[in-house]
């Protein structure tokens, strides 16, 4: 007898449908698995056999052929176990076949017949919904994550025996409920109020959060660059439901999710020895890279000049398009990669304070050149991080330290203004504006134009740098709830640009 069962296999952060066909007929007892299975899929035969027997079900000692269609796509991972087992049951007449028609199944089996959770359950659910299935049966521990999606019923199944009961109509699990955390308990991560001093960096981060700009922090080692960067997710607006779903989907596919809806924006800080592939994704079975794991959150690149040229260059496409494309054979995989980049570096290669610096002009020039390139083109703001004087650390002196919540409120208000202004343009924040949108939404009156011209004459303000300054000025005005960009806003914006290394240094 022949049976076919639908399942969904993870590919990148999305899933594609795979039909598991099982044929059982008289003959020598043999279990064949075809359809480009990898090792984990081939081993599925042993798990299926043991799980069936240990669940009080019958494993047919006949000629068993399993085909995974489409047969030309490579199949990887253990998530086919459940569909194969159920296919065997249906083909050997142990469960009614018509019960499976509008259902899809995903899950890994243990030898005892328990169902183990899989990576990328959310992607599988989205795939099942888009393919028009009525219900999706997943391991119990994936159920909450799967239930985040409307339009398809998701049931969590504890064991293979229970699944057989379900198909016979002898048992009915509760429809899974999404695990959406209570908004009031939201944890925004470390707070900006923990950071002493660093007014310049805090202000720059606020502008970055408000306008979706990338930042470069310059300061000595140990000054708190990582500490500051880690606080950026907490002052960004909380993710919308769609964004949260995207974050959860990515994390679920990478196997780093918590099984609940993500409520925080991710923060990723890869070490500078990372390869280009580690940063943007890839591999024989393509896995998302750090930029994808930071999707809708923050990617922190500490010691930027130490990263390999290849790794930094690989960031060009994601930074421009918000996605990564990876070619594998004839197939192109796409990973989402829309993150705010915070980069950090030292003042100079020796990283000593200015009065004890031993760097030559030549060395400084070389250091600056290592910094430049496609990434620097995408950085709108450059700020200083100060080695905080010890006195300040000890007695804490003056300053009011603003809490993240307060900054976040200003950021949300500023983003709201941008959304209203940019509605229908495809851009959501000032950082998304291209040259045309920048010209349109940051009109230059005579005074602003004169100021820009003055700087242009003295400091080689290229066309690109020019737009960057205008975008920052626009965000500064948005933070102050001003409709018009003022000269003051422009002045502040000008001070955040990375000045060209003076030519006299040869």
């Amino acid at each position, binding site marked *: 007898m022949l049976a076919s069962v639908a399942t969904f296999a993870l590919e990148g952060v999305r899933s594609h449908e795979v039909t598991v066909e099982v044929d059982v007929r008289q003959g020598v007892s043999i279990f064949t698995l075809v359809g480009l299975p990898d090792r984990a899929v081939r081993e599925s035969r042993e798990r299926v056999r043991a799980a069936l027997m240990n669940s009080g079900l019958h494993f047919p000692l006949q000629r068993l052929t399993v085909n995974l269609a489409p047969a030309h796509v490579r199949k990887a991972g253990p998530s086919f176990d459940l569909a194969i087992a159920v296919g065997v049951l249906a083909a050997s007449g142990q469960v009614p076949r018509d019960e499976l028609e509008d259902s899809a199944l995903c899950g890994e089996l243990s030898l005892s017949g328990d169902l183990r959770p899989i990576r990328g359950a959310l992607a599988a659910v989205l795939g099942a919904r888009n393919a028009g299935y009525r219900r999706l049966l997943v391991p119990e521990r994936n159920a909450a994550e799967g239930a985040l999606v409307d339009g398809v019923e998701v049931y969590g199944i504890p064991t293979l025996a229970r699944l057989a009961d379900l198909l016979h109509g002898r048992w009915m699990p509760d429809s899974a409920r999404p695990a959406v955390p209570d908004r009031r308990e939201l944890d925004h991560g470390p707070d900006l109020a923990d950071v002493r*001093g*660093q*007014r*310049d960096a*805090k*202000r720059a981060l606020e502008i970055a959060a408000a306008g979706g700009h990338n930042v470069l922090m*310059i300061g000595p080692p140990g000054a708190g660059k990582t500490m500051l960067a880690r606080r950026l997710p907490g002052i960004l607006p909380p993710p919308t439901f769609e964004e949260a779903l995207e974050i959860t989907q990515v994390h679920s596919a990478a196997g780093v999710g918590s099984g609940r809806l993500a409520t925080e924006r991710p923060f990723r800080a890869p070490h500078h020895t990372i390869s280009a592939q580690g940063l943007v994704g890839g591999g024989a079975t393509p896995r998302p890279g750090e930029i994808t794991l930071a999707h809708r959150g923050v990617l922190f690149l500490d010691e930027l000049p130490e990263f390999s040229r290849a790794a930094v260059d690989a960031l060009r496409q994601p930074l421009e398009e918000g996605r990564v494309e990876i070619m594998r054979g004839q197939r192109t995989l796409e990973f989402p990669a829309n993150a705010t980049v915070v980069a950090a*570096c*030292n*003042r*100079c290669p020796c990283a000593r304070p*200015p*009065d*004890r*610096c*031993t*760097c*030559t*002009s*030549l060395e*400084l020039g070389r*250091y*600056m050149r290592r910094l430049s390139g496609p990434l620097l083109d995408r950085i709108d703001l450059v*700020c*200083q991080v*100060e080695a905080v004087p010890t006195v300040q650390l000890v007695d804490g002196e*003056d300053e009011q330290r603003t809490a993240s919540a307060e900054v976040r409120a200003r950021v949300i208000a500023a983003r709201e203004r941008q959304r209203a202004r940019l509605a229908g343009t495809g851009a959501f924040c000032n950082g998304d504006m291209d040259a045309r949108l920048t010209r349109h939404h940051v009109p230059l009156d005579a005074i602003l134009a004169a*100021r820009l011209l*003055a*700087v242009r004459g*003295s*400091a080689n303000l290229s066309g690109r740098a020019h737009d960057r300054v205008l975008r920052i000025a626009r965000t*500064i005005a948005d933070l102050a709830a001003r409709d018009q960009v003022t*000269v*003051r*806003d*422009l*002045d*502040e*914006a*000008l*001070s*955040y640009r990375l*000045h060209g*290394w*003076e030519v*006299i*240094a*040869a």
Partner: protein
Amino acid sequence: MTGSLEPTTASGACDRCLRRAFLVAHLAPRIAGLLERPAPRVTGLLALPDEAFVAAAAGERSDEAWTFLEGLDLESERGGLERASMFAVCRHADGYPALLHELADPPAVLFGRGRMRALRALSDEPAVAMVGTRRASPYGTEVAYALGRGLGAAGVPVVSGLALGIDGTAHRGCLDGGGTPVGVLACGPDVVYPRRHRRLYERVQAEGIVVSELPPGTPPFRWSFPARNRIMAALARMTVVVEAAEPSGSLITADFARDLGRAVAAVPGRVTSSFARGTNGLLKDGAVPVTRTEDVLDELFGVGVRSAPPLDEETVEPLDPHDSAVLEAAERFGSVDAIARELRLSAADARAALGRLEAEGYLVRRDLGGWERAAS
């Protein structure tokens, strides 16, 4: 470029001197083997008459050297010079800078390329040699550029070695100030060393002149750098060392200058900085301290006789008190946080003031650090 050249001629060198120059170049690799390191000096060797020189440099291979000299076709060499728009003047010719005769071992011939007038002018107009480390700090780079530019604007030729670091920067300043650079090379006058100075080399020979005692095509040798330094010291009335560690080729130039009875000056540096050990040492030994162009001009022409013309500055509006406070703080601290703390400003307002001051030309930024007051 060739349009600006005056008639170049090789006839300014007599056969004997030309022979000597080619002989030195021919034996250059042997000389390298004879000298001790570090700080090899060739003063004694180069002063020897031909016979003794060949005996000292070539040893038992003297015969080979003499054969080389006999086979030398001076007419074709002269033709080659002319075709390459280069000139040669020997110590018996009129065009030879008289100042070089003060050396114990004046070069037999000066080969060169560029404006002959620049070389002749050195007899009437005092020139300044500016030298310093190849590994210059941003401070040294800035000062060398400013001094070079000031001297250039004041019409004082700047003699330097076209090396990386201070040398090259001083010449860039001189060129930007509209002055006449004189480049003295440690290789043939047509050899660009270091190669990354190709553009600078071309600017120098277009606006001034490059000279060398070595014939065209000779590569640089270890010994030819200190040998070149004696020519720099001799061509200038005063040698200014901008930044020098210890030991340093710049200090050799200063020694030559002192031996010739010329003025030696140095730019003071931080006492704790390794970049400034050589220059601060010179100052302790009595060198003239130089902090601005006027110091050099006063030493050359007498106090107040000549002054550096003001550089073309845009007229700047007077500052409001708030901005001038920020300007002062920027000069003292250079970091936004320190400025904001000092003046009790928000970082945003401090940034706005800094941006304004920079846009209006009061402040300039340094590499990845903070701000500094623009040079006035």
